[in-house]
């Protein structure tokens, strides 16, 4: 096989040029070294001869090669139709288009289940494990803090640098403080935190529930009469909804600190003046708008992560797909939600 496989074309052309041939015999030297390459060549040749009604006598071949050929030519008892694996671009697009309503329905069903389970939880009719919930709260909050600190600090710094380029031309560098504060508090902190959390927490929700689906752990809950939405999804949604606003406020502070460090350390602005500008720029409205963003994002991330996890196929590849899909869904949702909230704020004049 290392030297390539033999082709049957030469033999076939010889056979065509001698139509009087009715049988093919083989003769192999006892010291002949052969491998699967020979068997593959012979198999192809035997099949071609079969089509042309030529007899093939395999007696002269090595014993082992004869056995392998017999095995390869054996007619199996049943032929299971092999599922078509490769679809054309049009087929894939068509199939996805046909499934749009199905996926919308599944999202709505899932949201309905969450609302129903939340209602039952309020009435004390859902089994709720507080220990698990506290662990989730820790995972969503404390475990994400370092990453949120770093990213928010850097975004605050970048914003201060970029803003100062234009503001310097008007001698209005001090307004860097207003720009950093307003942009971060109103929307950017929530968006950055949302993106970090969807990568870290949303993906882990999807992977976790996906593995539980693959390992039949979710089936085990169902056969116990426990709703997986109430038992697994509600604590995750609640933990994230609780922690996202806190993380966003923390990110606001880190971003303002980042802007402050650059403005004072590199742009040589007065620190007291910077803090005064920040204080005047941040209105309570902006804080509320930032918190509303963070609440909406928390719901989107948790629902996307849990939905993809629960919908996961029961294999390792499925878990990978669910995780990727959870992050993509969450980030797309965050961007769309930001656009909608910003538009509403604009219309309401807040």
């Amino acid at each position, binding site marked *: 096989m290392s030297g390539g496989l033999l082709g049957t074309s030469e033999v076939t052309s010889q056979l065509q040029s001698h139509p009087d041939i009715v049988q093919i015999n083989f003769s192999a030297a006892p010291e002949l070294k052969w491998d699967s390459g020979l068997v593959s060549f012979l198999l192809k040749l035997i099949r071609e001869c079969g089509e042309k009604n030529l007899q093939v006598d395999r007696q002269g071949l090595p014993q082992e090669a004869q056995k392998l050929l017999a095995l390869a030519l054996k007619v199996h008892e049943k032929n299971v139709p092999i599922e078509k694996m490769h679809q054309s671009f049009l087929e894939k697009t068509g199939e996805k288009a046909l499934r749009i309503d199905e996926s919308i329905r599944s999202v709505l069903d899932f949201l309905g289940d969450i609302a129903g389970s939340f209602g039952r939880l309020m009435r004390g009719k859902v*089994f709720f494990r507080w220990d698990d919930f506290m662990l989730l709260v820790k995972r969503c909050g404390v475990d994400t803090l370092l990453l949120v600190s770093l990213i928010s600090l850097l975004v605050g710094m970048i914003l201060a640098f970029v803003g100062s380029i234009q503001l310097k031309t008007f001698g209005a560098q001090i307004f860097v403080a207003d720009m950093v504060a307003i942009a971060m508090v109103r929307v950017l902190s929530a968006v950055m935190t949302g993106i970090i959390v969807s990568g870290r927490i949303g993906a882990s929700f999807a992977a976790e529930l996906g593995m539980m689906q693959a390992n039949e752990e979710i089936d*085990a809950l169902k056969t116990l*009469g426990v709703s997986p939405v109430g038992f697994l999804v509600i604590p995750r949604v609640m933990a994230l909804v609780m922690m996202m606003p806190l993380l966003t406020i923390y990110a606001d502070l880190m971003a303002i600190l980042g802007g402050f460090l650059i403005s004072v350390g590199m742009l040589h602005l007065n620190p007291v003046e910077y803090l005064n500008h920040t204080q005047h720029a941040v209105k309570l409205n902006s804080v509320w708008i930032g918190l509303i963003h963070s609440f909406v994002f928390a719901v989107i991330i948790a629902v996307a992560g849990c939905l993809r996890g629960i919908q996961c196929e029961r294999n390792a590849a499925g878990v990978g797909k669910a995780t990727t899909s959870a992050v993509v869904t969450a980030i797309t949702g965050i961007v769309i939600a930001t656009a909608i909230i910003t538009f509403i704020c604009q219309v309401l004049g807040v």
Partner: protein
Amino acid sequence: MDTAIQPVIEVQGLDLGYDGIPVLHDLNFSVNKGDIFIVMGVSGSGKSTLLKSMIGLKEPTKGKILFNGKSFWDEETQGQQNMMRGFGVLYQEGALWSSMTVGENVALPLELYTKLSKQQIQEIVALKLSLVGLEGHEDLFPSGISGGMCKRVSLARAIALDPGIIFFDEPSAGLDPINARKLDDLILELRDGLGATIVVVTHELASIFAIGNNSVFLDEVSKTMIATGDPKALLADSKDPRVIQFLTRGKSNEEQKSK
């Protein structure tokens, strides 16, 4: 005079399928109290699909599954959940909840459906674990124990609420012959001890003959059941080559008779 015994499980005219593609059709059989009922057939014959339908995870396209005379799939959600509380299920890979310890896994059904105190629950958990030979393993996590132990913990969880029916999905899969034999013995002991009815999905011949006293054979080509009865009787009397081939690891009727 014969008193009519009400079967614990009755399957009547059951059809099952996925996305409109039929997997099994026209299944009719019944399981009596105390039976160890084997669902057998080659891979892909629909054994696990049938089990899923029996444990309430897969709605049939047609037909009924009756538990003690009550049709499961005709019940409302609450009624179905009440009936499911009477089942114990041992999944193929154990399906232990990985975020909980062994003790918490066995305790969860008790926390959900009994009003026992924590202390009492711990006592029951210890008892159930000792029944499967794992006393003292309460604080370990599923990731820290072997596959065979996972299955035994899963069995302890399945019997936590003293169920009337216990379902086993491929209990011997992935176990060495000694542990597979131990699990078979445990199934027999639990049947006798708990007075439970047991349904086992398997294609392990050794287990089938060791524990089964009733069975159904599913055929992947005709997509229906082709035999039912005691596996040993099927081996001795069945004229169907598919059943004989399966029960003799591929031998034909003639080879079996000439033996």
